[in-house]
């Protein structure tokens, strides 16, 4: 459905995207993860045909983006980072306008618009001006304009940015329900969000892909240790020593009020720790597994990528000297 082959985009001297390749099949929800400025938006803009790549090739919905942009544009729905709304237009009229631009016949238009309004929960605001909507509804309208022509491919750039927590949950549910057998690409800089919606993830940093895999595989490959956070009421000095002898526990350190226990993966350390605290009567307040944050996953992958390129350089050097 979507195939990017060594895409590159250069702005003057700046390489915004460099040699980016990935694939997404029908039914995939692919997450684009990376910090701001990593090249997510640029990659998406290339895929939608908004801007041409400096180098490389992209095939979307069966057509080459550079050679047959019209065919591609007919089959994709795109939500840019800023929802592109005409503030002077009524919601329903705006969607009809987009449907017309997307090439729907007059006879299909009103049914498609009604469906988009329904699936994006816009019934109560359908006759209001787009400019008068709250941020949450504007974002929904942005999604509605992307799906109004029932596209095969949906490209969403930071769909949850600027929303409040409740709206974020609603937006996630909406994206999940819209995914169906479409191919969806969405970008975010929040790992939790990607891991809840996406089946696969592409991690991008400084314009380059540092990882491309399913989210579980990525997490497992990185998770070399299980980490448990512990908080107790009666801070006993013997606690650290006692916990250290538990099976699988590698280290126990104190960080402020909390104890941080590192253990072998899948050793059941959390359970053992909790049991011991209860047995000894230290007053258990909190015990939790520490999830890897975006920073951890990300730093790990970036470190690995940079170490890899350093190694490659080191390996090249002796060969040159030998000649």
């Amino acid at each position, binding site marked *: 459905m979507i195939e990017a082959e060594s895409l590159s985009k250069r*702005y003057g001297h700046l390489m915004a995207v460099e040699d980016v390749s990935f694939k997404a099949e029908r039914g995939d929800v692919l997450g684009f993860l990376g910090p701001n400025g990593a090249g997510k938006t640029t990659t998406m*803009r290339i895929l*939608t*045909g*908004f*801007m*041409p790549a400096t180098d490389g090739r992209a095939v979307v919905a069966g057509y080459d983006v550079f050679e047959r942009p*019209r*065919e591609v*544009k*007919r089959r*994709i729905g*795109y939500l*840019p980072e*800023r*929802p*592109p*709304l*005409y*503030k*002077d*237009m009524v919601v329903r009229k705006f969607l009809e*306008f*987009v449907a*017309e*631009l*997307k*090439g729907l016949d007059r006879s299909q238009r009103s049914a498609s618009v009604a469906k988009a309004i329904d699936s994006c929960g816009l019934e109560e605001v359908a006759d209001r001006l787009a400019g008068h909507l709250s941020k949450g509804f504007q974002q929904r309208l942005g999604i509605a*304009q992307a799906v109004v022509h029932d596209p095969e491919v949906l490209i969403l750039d930071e769909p949850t940015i600027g929303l409040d927590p409740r709206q974020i949950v609603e937006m996630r549910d909406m994206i999940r329900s819209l995914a169906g057998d479409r191919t969806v690409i969405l970008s975010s800089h929040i790992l939790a969000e990607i891991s809840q919606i996406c089946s696969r993830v592409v991690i991008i940093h400084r314009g380059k892909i540092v990882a491309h895999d399913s989210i579980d595989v990525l997490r497992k490959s990185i998770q070399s240790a299980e980490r448990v956070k512990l908080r107790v009421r009666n801070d006993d000095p013997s606690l650290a020593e006692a916990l250290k002898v538990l099976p699988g526990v590698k280290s126990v350190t104190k960080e402020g009020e909390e104890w941080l226990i590192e253990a072998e993966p899948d050793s059941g350390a959390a359970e053992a720790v909790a049991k011991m605290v209860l047995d000894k009567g230290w007053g258990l307040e909190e015990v939790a597994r520490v999830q890897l944050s975006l920073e951890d996953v990300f730093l790990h992958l970036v470190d690995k990528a940079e170490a890899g390129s350093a190694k490659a350089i080191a390996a090249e050097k002796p060969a040159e000297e030998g000649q």
Partner: protein
Amino acid sequence: MRGTWAIWKREARFYFSNPTAYVLIAVFLVLADLAFLFMFNYYTVQSAQFGRFMSEMPYDFTPNWIIEVLFDFLGTVILITLPFVTMRLLAEERHTGTDELLLTTPVSITDIVLGKYLAALTLLAVMLALSIYMPILLDRYSEIAWKPVLIGYLGLFLMGAAFISLGLFISSLTESQVIAGLATFGLLLGVWLISGMGDIAGRILDYLTPSISAAVEEGLKFMSLNDHLSPFLKGVLDTRDLLFYLTTAFFGIFLAHRSVESTRWR
């Protein structure tokens, strides 16, 4: 074509769904009315005073003279008002990010540029059409020749068409409506004044190199957008003037197209 139609519809609806069009039309008609009353009054006083000596007036002093002077003034009003119509055309799309929507739908850049151009042209046509009651009024109480009036309207419309295309191009260069409006106004005024500069350049060159003075003067006057209007107002339909406005309009639209296209590569 279908894309052009869709864009045109949206733009035209925009003009008439908020005060923009109404304010512009009101300003245009009020100024036109004032000029009309002034010329009408001047004409009646003059004809009452000179009476039977009318045939000895230095120019063709018929009721059509009122229309000719009035239309000349309307040309200036158009020059002042059209930058307010064209300034938002493409600049606003870029400012609000809706260009990203348009350029990721299967409409071509030609559709976008033409749709916007035709919408502004429609507004101009409405403005001009609403002023028709002035010649009609004149015709009720006296008699006017309609051919020069209609050719005059055609001239104003074509000149406006050229103005709009230049404004459209400038609007494609910036995100700021204010800059687009001011720059358009400056450009139109500049091209307007070239005619006067032709006079001055001609007179100076008469002293220096008389051999080319006439050519320079003619050349500068030819580039002036308003010098091509006066034949129309006199009821003369000259292919040169017609082609001048049409090519200018085409040139502006072409530049706007290239400019939108090039923003994608930046």
